[in-house]
Structures are given as structure tokens and as C-alpha cells.
């Protein structure tokens, strides 16, 4: 195969890959789905928030990682709100009010999650107590 023919075929294959098998939209992505904010400080704030928000259609990815159309729309929403001066945590709260804690990857201590934080501390305290008793006995 000649080099140009190979390059042509590779390009063709990449072209095929760019077409999702089942389209999730017929419109181009939202303006700020793939475009960064002009202000690097605000973009960093937006990026940090997007990495801790769950993509609702893919569920195991953050919206920063996902190419799902809905994740793109969520990134657009996060970026435009941060550009408008909204606090990242206010945006997180707004989303949690709509989708529950599920949408956020940032762990919070709540009625349902407090044992996750308490049990390791209890185990540590227990292990410490046993060790202390043993060591005292040895001496």
C-alpha cells in the first residue's frame, strides 16, 4: 500500500470513529461543552468542579471525562455559571437539589454516610487500645 493511500484510509477510519453509533443529538455540542473559559483561573475552578460531578447518562464517569451529549450540556452550564461569577459549591448544591447526592463525587457526611467515616476511627481506636494493653503487659 502506498503511503498516501494508507494515510487516506487512516483518515477515513478516524472519520468513521467520529460518528457515534447511536447519535444522542442532532445538534452540534453546546458552545462551552468543549471550549475552555477565556479566564484561566475561572477555567481551573470549572475544571475542578466538573471532575467531581457525575455524568448522569454514563454514571461511572465525571462530566469532565465523558463525551456524552448530556455531559457536554452540563459542562456548558458549569462554565457559563462560573463565568457569570457563581461559586462552584453553589452550582454543586443546585445540582444536588435536582439529582440528590448521587450527582456529586465529593463525599459528604450525612445521615446515611456517617458510618463510613465513624467506623475506621472506631477500628483505629480499638486497635490502639489493644496494642496499648499488650505493650503494657510486655513491659
Amino acid at each position, binding site marked *: 500500500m502506498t503511503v498516501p493511500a494508507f494515510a487516506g484510509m487512516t483518515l477515513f477510519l478516524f472519520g468513521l470513529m467520529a460518528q457515534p453509533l*447511536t*447519535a*444522542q*443529538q*442532532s*445538534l452540534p455540542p*453546546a458552545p462551552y461543552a468543549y471550549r475552555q473559559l477565556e479566564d484561566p483561573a475561572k477555567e481551573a475552578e470549572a475544571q475542578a468542579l466538573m471532575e467531581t460531578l457525575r455524568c*448522569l*447518562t454514563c*454514571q461511572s464517569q465525571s462530566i469532565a471525562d465523558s463525551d456524552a*451529549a*448530556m455531559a457536554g*450540556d*452540563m459542562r*456548558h*452550564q458549569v462554565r457559563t455559571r462560573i463565568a457569570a461569577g457563581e461559586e462552584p459549591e453553589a452550582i454543586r448544591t443546585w*445540582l*444536588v*437539589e*435536582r*439529582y*440528590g447526592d*448521587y*450527582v456529586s463525587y465529593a463525599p459528604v457526611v450525612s445521615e446515611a454516610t456517617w458510618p463510613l467515616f465513624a467506623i475506621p476511627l472506631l477500628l483505629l481506636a480499638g486497635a490502639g487500645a489493644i496494642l496499648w494493653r499488650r505493650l503494657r503487659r510486655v513491659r
Partner: protein
Amino acid sequence: MRWWWWIPLLLFAGFLGVAAYQLTQPKDDLVPSAMVGKPLPEFELPPAAEGTSGVSTADLKGGKPRLLNVWASWCLPCIAEAPQLERLKQEGVEIVGIAIRDRPEDVAAFLARHGNPYARIGADDLSQVQLAIGSSGVPETFVIDGEGVIRYQHIGDIRAEHVPLLLEKLREAGK
């Protein structure tokens, strides 16, 4: 050996048992909206196609309960659900549509092919209203009461067996 030495092992076995049981359970992919029971947020959407009207919060308030159907012409389950929406319309239900990331010509083609059960259809090109009402995909259908409060959420396409349930929820919302 003292009996209580077995406690950690038993706890671990119990943990393994719970994990094994959970593995046999089907995965729950549904993300319920936390907006059920709360009033609809304020929004105003332009018409999604020629010949239909846009949707604002005011259109969903007043008088009677309505269905708010979040859909798209590119969504395959929405085709499966179209006949059930038609049935609900024939039962006298007012259905308001919100088309997600859609082109007017695609919406028009979908309606021409699968029927138009909608009183009005708004275009939500950036999923802004979808996010505001806590919907995480298409299709989803919300029961909105006469005061504009979200009363029930149906996730996924409406099948024949869901129609009586939705009619019941609409009746409850009308009380």
C-alpha cells in the same frame, strides 16, 4: 482458643455475604429526580418546530394536571412510546413536550411519522430545562398538577402497562 476470636472472621464472612447478594441483584440505573414534590422552575422555551407553540412555566400551571414529556426525535424509545402518548391524549390528557437538542425539521419529520400528541413543544437545545427539573435522559415524563408542582416522574418509555398508572397519578394530582 477463645470464642470471641471468631468475631472478626464472622463479620468478614457477613460482609462477603452482603457483597455476593448485591452482585446477584440487577443494577439500578435510574436516577430519580429530587424535584418531585417541588414547584417547576421558571423557564421559557421557543417552539421546537414550525406550527407548534413554545413552552413556559405558565403554560403548565392553571386548572388541571398535565403531563410534561421530555423527548427527542433522535431517541429510539421515544418512537416506542408515541402510541401510548396518543392513547393518553385520547383519554383527555394535555401533554406538553420538551424536545432535547433537536432540529426543527427533525421534530417535524418525527411528528409527521409517529403522530403529534403534544399541545405544545418547547426546544431545549442546551438541556437547561432538563437539568433544572432533574431529568437525566430521554424519554422521561412528569406529572404536573394544576399549581405547577411536579407530582410524579416516569423514567424511560411509557409502555401500555404504564398508561393506567399515569392516569391514576394524574387523577391524584387533580384532587
